[in-house]
């Protein structure tokens, strides 16, 4: 025993070194290695947290258009108005509202060079309807009975019942039937290497890193103004801000407070984009406190929406008073109240309804304290801050709110009895979300109308808006709907969010449009990036 029984140290270290080298070599083998290439002169780089699961419209990629890789029969312009895309003109609705006919544009080619035909449109929509396909879009197309192609340039959609906003559902990107037919769409290689008709074709996609798009030189609407786009996927907000600061991106989406750091910084500007994405508090009818309309109206008067926008949202938002965003042509201006709190009005409402302040400042009626629980998803820091702000505002008028941060599986069984900070919204058609969220037929069905709100006026207005294509009739119906919601307050609407981006000063052509909640590669600030240019 002793020092001379130990083997040579160099032997051991060389073993260790060999092991390390082997690990490295193994790693290097499994990593794809290709040659580097010159950066594109005017390739634009955008950064987002939102990475799609699959680049296939049938599997929920870019269903509302702006998908860069695909086109729908129709698309939306800067004001979110429908314009023809793969359809030559806007498709037409039959007099009974149950048949929609679209004529296809001539000479449209897929990225692989094959021509677009009506069969591709039929295939796309039939795939969505196929229960074997993992598409959540199926819920939105439950009025669709059949899609047929009487000739190669015509597509006919038949509906179960008249559905006025059906054209709004035709933004779904069209996939080539030839490439996908006979395959399991859920597992097709197409989902990683898609073929569309859009302004860009996919060169490569490294999940977790980037999507590289190159301009489609044969794009039917004209060649893109730049060579290509790189979409960098950076999930963490702080990391994205750091990399933007290092000058890696032409456009990056950032949380409002991080974006504010770029304000006034040379070479960048901050772009705030309005959205239709609202946050509010659901007030269930089954709860003895929130079931009283006086309490609901008082809460709506008591919250200080202006303070929520400046304090919680860092200025990136606007007060919300109803489920139809102010940017929508269907918005009813008369329902907008004061952005600040109106505690006196709230107190008067509660007094009149018999909710009298007790010794501890909490109001009560017939021995029942004006108290309820307010749930929020614990991981959502924005909803948490909103819940705390509402709690404080309610306390000022004598209503005791107990905020509870929970997971969704704990929240869902309680939605019928306890209030919840929720968010929804669509910029496109008021029917889309509101029909299920406020219709009595959906009362208590999961996330559809969880508070079991029932109003014959609202039911009738929502049905009228869906049944009739006539714009003035729809306008009147949705006005009535919004006024009734404002009177009944099944939700206290708090704020509409704004998405914030930092944009390099070298980029021209940015045209912000009102965004939905979901925005990733598709439907972000760069929805029209094929018309952007970049100064060197």
């Amino acid at each position, binding site marked *: 025993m002793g020092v001379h029984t130990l083997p040579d140290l160099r032997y051991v270290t060389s073993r260790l070194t060999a092991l390390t080298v082997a690990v490295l070599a193994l790693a290097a083998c499994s990593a794809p290695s290709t040659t580097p290439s010159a950066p594109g002169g005017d390739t634009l780089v955008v950064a987002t947290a939102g990475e799609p699961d699959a680049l296939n419209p049938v599997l929920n990629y870019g269903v509302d258009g702006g998908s860069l890789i695909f086109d729908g029969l129709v698309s939306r312009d800067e004001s979110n108005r429908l314009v023809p895309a793969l359809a030559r003109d806007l498709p037409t609705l039959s007099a009974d509202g149950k048949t929609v006919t679209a004529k296809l544009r001539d000479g449209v080619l897929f990225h692989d060079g094959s021509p677009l035909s009506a069969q591709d449109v039929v295939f796309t929509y039939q795939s969505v309807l196929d229960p074997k396909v993992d598409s959540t879009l199926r819920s939105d197309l439950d009025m669709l009975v059949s899609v047929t192609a009487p000739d190669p340039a015509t597509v006919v959609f038949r509906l179960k019942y008249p559905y006025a906003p059906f054209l709004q559902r035709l933004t779904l990107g069209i996939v080539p039937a030839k490439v996908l037919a006979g395959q399991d769409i*859920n597992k097709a290689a197409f989902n990683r290497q898609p073929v569309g008709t859009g302004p860009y074709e996919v060169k490569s996609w490294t999940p977790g890193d980037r999507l590289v798009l190159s301009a489609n030189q044969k794009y039917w609407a004209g060649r893109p103004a730049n060579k290509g786009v790189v979409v960098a996927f950076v999930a963490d907000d702080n*990391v994205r801000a750091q990399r933007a600061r290092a000058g890696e991106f032409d456009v990056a989406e950032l949380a409002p407070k991080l974006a504010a750091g770029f304000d006034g910084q040379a070479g960048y500007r901050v772009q705030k984009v309005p959205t239709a994405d609202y946050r509010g508090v659901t007030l269930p009818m089954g709860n003895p406190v929130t079931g009283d309309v006086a309490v609901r109206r008082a809460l709506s008067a008591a919250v200080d929406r202006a303070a929520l926008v400046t304090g919680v949202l860092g200025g990136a938002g606007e007060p919300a008073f109803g489920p139809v965003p102010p940017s929508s042509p269907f918005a009813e201006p008369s329902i907008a109240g004061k952005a600040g709190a109106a505690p006196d009005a709230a107190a008067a409402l509660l007094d009149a309804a018999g909710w009298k302040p007790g010794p501890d400042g909490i109001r009560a009626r017939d021995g029942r304290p004006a108290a309820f629980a307010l749930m929020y998803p614990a991981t959502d820091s924005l909803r948490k801050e909103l819940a705390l702000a509402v709690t404080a505002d309610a306390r000022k008028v004598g209503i005791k709110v107990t905020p509870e941060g929970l997971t969704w*599986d704990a929240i869902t069984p309680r939605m019928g009895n306890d209030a919840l900070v929720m968010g929804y919204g669509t910029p496109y058609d008021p029917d889309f979300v509101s029909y299920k969220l406020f219709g009595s037929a959906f009362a208590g069905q999961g996330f559809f109308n969880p508070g079991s709100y029932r109003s014959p006026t609202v039911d009738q207005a929502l049905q009228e808006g869906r049944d009739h294509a006539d714009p003035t009739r729809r306008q009147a119906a949705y006005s009535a709907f919004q006024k009734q919601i404002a009177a009944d307050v099944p939700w206290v609407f708090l704020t509409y969010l704004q998405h914030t981006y930092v944009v390099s000063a070298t980029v021209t052509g940015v045209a912000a449009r009102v965004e939905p909640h979901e925005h990733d590669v598709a439907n972000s600030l760069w929805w029209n990036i094929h018309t952007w240019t970049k100064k060197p």
Partner: protein
Amino acid sequence: MVRRRLLVAVPVLAATSAGMFALGAASPIDPAQQYAGAAAFTTSEENLAQIRANWGVDDPLPVQYARWVGHLLQGDLGWSTSRHEPVTSVLAARAGWTLLLVGAALALVLVTSLLLGTLAAYRRGGWLDRGLRASAYAVQSMPVFWLGLAAIALFALALGWLPAGGLTGITATGTDPADVARHLILPVGVLAVAQAPWFVLFIRDAVAESLRDDHVLAARARGLPGRTVLFGHALRTALLPFLTLVGTHLPELVGGAVLVETVFSLPGLGAVTVQAALGSDFPLLAATTLATTVVVLAANLVTDLAYAAADPRVRLDD
């Protein structure tokens, strides 16, 4: 011994994967809702049920597990519901980067900690020793995440020497080794620095201890040069327990790599593992857990083999 270890590995792997499935089944998260994202709130229950049926995730747990094992035996790791691609292609695309990151960081940690720890022990109480110990304690108290952001702020933003993140230049079309290497300097450095304190302090203490051992004193008394005594005698004695430390510390290194991958936006296994856990994606979770278990078992085996090679008193034929 190798054969015996391999035999033990089988029940360990079976137990790990079964545990994974049991934990997943106890999770209240609905993978279909997770998959739908924001659309979950406007998707009908019927629609979600169809998707769950397509995936077979409503089947009883033993059925799901048996199906998974059956596929595994045929070399098929199953379908990742959270990534929407085969588990094998998730691993193929990402495991290499994680291995590269961990391997390079481990190599760096080993070399620097052996060198610095030994020198600090030799001049115990000197400025190198004191400085090293102070910074080791300081680094030990910093979260990896914070270290990463600080490194970006310093080397990428303030000095502009190195890229702030990503695997390659943002407009590069391929993965050029030189470009990748440049992008990996910061992540590997941060991971190595974050893990180094353990190793440096261990080596320092172990060498300091063995400098007082009889055989080292004897070597000195024989008038051998200082460097020979330090590296040839003192460090050599200290190295044995160090091997054990490396083996047991490997899982922590893998854990650190997950965070480093997030900070530097590297497309490794870290982010997908978190996503798989959040989305109740059994097949992917089971595969990454199995892969980690295999790596740890292999590391322990290698440690023991290295031990046997370094110390003839250790016999493997028991």
